[in-house]
């Protein structure tokens, strides 16, 4: 990788995309960069182009205009494998990314494609199963597992390839709350270990953990910045067919009724404290 320690993890330079000359633009002139080790949330409603953006990041799609740069390199045929090894993607539907008959095989899939030695594959698979507590499912067919477990298997398969960037493309939207919480804590762990985490979502509560947020609205980037800045302009989210987190909505609604709270609202505790401070100051 050319000087990858200094280059951003992902860099989009004036990227636009459409499927054919006659179809509509799905991504319109998007420019942003994601640094290594960041947790970035990409938010937007259905049809905003979020999934297309992800496919541009790992070479599944080629930009019609502009350039996509990953870890210092432009995506081309020659380095496609390298890029895909470094950018792991967990997709939304647990049933649509099963690539092996058993759990063991599914995790080994990517490693087999990378032509690693069999011993290396076996040791990595064992390690991943231990890490994600999947050992008891070693020989079970993947399709017999629950949704949350299937996503864990997919994550194991991705982590086994030693990526630098992990993308979660609405990976929890089809899971029940328990699995969702488990996956979120896994994402936090990965972030603490130094992985670059890109979380694509339209769930309002998910953006509070991010370092930075990108808001997509019909193919355009309408916001790029950190959470507090975004919370001061909640209309951006509403226009993008999504909502701000509950606490932000609540604070905003109180504001519209003439109650202007100061203080943060990153959590329910903070909001309650702000309300108390407001009352005490009256």
């Amino acid at each position, binding site marked *: 990788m050319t000087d990858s320690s200094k280059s951003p993890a992902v860099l989009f330079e004036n990227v636009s995309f459409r499927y054919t000359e006659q179809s509509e633009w799905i991504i319109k002139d998007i420019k942003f960069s994601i640094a290594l080790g960041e947790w970035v949330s990409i938010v937007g409603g259905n049809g905003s182009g979020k999934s297309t953006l992800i496919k541009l990041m790992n070479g599944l799609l080629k930009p019609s205009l502009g350039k996509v740069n990953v870890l210092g390199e432009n995506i081309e045929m020659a380095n496609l494998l390298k890029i895909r090894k470094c950018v792991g993607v967990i997709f939304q539907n647990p049933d649509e990314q099963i690539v092996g008959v058993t759990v063991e095989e599914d995790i080994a899939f990517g490693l087999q494609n990378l032509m690693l030695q069999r011993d290396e594959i076996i040791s990595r698979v064992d390690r991943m199963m231990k890490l994600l507590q999947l050992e008891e499912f070693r020989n079970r067919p993947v399709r017999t597992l629950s949704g949350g477990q299937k996503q864990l298997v997919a994550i194991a398969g991705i982590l086994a390839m030693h990526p630098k960037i992990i993308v979660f493309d609405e990976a929890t939207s089809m899971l*029940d*709350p328990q699995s969702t919480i488990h996956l979120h804590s896994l994402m936090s762990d990965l972030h603490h270990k130094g992985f670059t985490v890109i979380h694509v979502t*339209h769930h*309002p509560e998910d953006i509070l953990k991010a370092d930075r947020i990108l808001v997509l609205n019909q193919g355009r980037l309408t916001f790029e910045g950190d959470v507090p800045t975004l919370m001061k302009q909640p209309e951006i989210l509403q226009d993008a067919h999504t909502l701000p*987190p*509950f606490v932000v909505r609540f604070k905003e609604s109180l504001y519209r009724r003439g109650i202007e709270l100061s203080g943060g609202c990153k959590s329910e505790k903070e909001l*309650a404290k702000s309300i108390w401070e407001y*009352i005490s100051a*009256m």
Partner: protein
Amino acid sequence: MGIYFCDVSYTHAKGTPMEHRAVKCITMSIPDGQFMAIMGSSGSGKSTLGQLSAGLLKPDKGTVYVDNIPINNRKSRSQLWNKIAYVSQFPEHQLFEETVFLDIGFGLRRMKYSDHEIMAKVKETMELVGLDFERYKDRSPFQLSGGEQRLAALAGALIKEPNILILDEPTVGLDPSARMKFHAVLTFLKRTRRISIVYITHDLQDALEHADRLILLHHGELVHDLKTTAIHSVLDHPGIPLFPTPLLRLRKELEVIFPELIDSEIVQENKLLNYVSERILRISEMDNE
């Protein structure tokens, strides 16, 4: 027109190695006009329960009664088919006609309405769910987005003017604006039609916003049956996969702050908002006096 479950059990994949008991000995009744939410983790049997209510599955043991008629034979099920509407988790499975117009009107064509009546009714139902008639009537159902497909499936169900509507995880994968549209339709239905709604979901806040009553399933058994306003009584139970929503967490924090307890019956966003702003304004009025 209520649904009554009498000691109902159902096993999936009977006689194969993948056999598993989805629903175990459930007895409960859903009175006419009630909005009931069924919750539970994956595999708890909630979808199965919905399918049993719709008559899609026949119980292995026990009987399901709809309007006091047991629906365990084909004849009674076909008699009731236009009174019970079922919207599946995967709307793309339920849509099959060439255009949205034909698909929504399908139920009526079977009931021998005239073309003119069908056109009027389809238009009315599409407006009800928020699908603009002119824009969508000639489009193929498979070209619609996930949210639009759900609304189309809902329209196809509502056009029969059912007494019972069963919705299986209707908001999964919908973005917040599509979700709000869907909720608006439900609110409207609650207000204007006498219809029993069975709402299967794992989103607690969705359930709290609309349902009167909440049923919790765990491994196929009915473990809790409560009014939604009484939710705080079960949140702390161990082993129950119910997690407090941001609203409930805020309410808990506010209970610490405010001198008297916050009315623990508030579970809806609007109501909490009104309550808090009223208290604050009242305090400021008291200060001013």
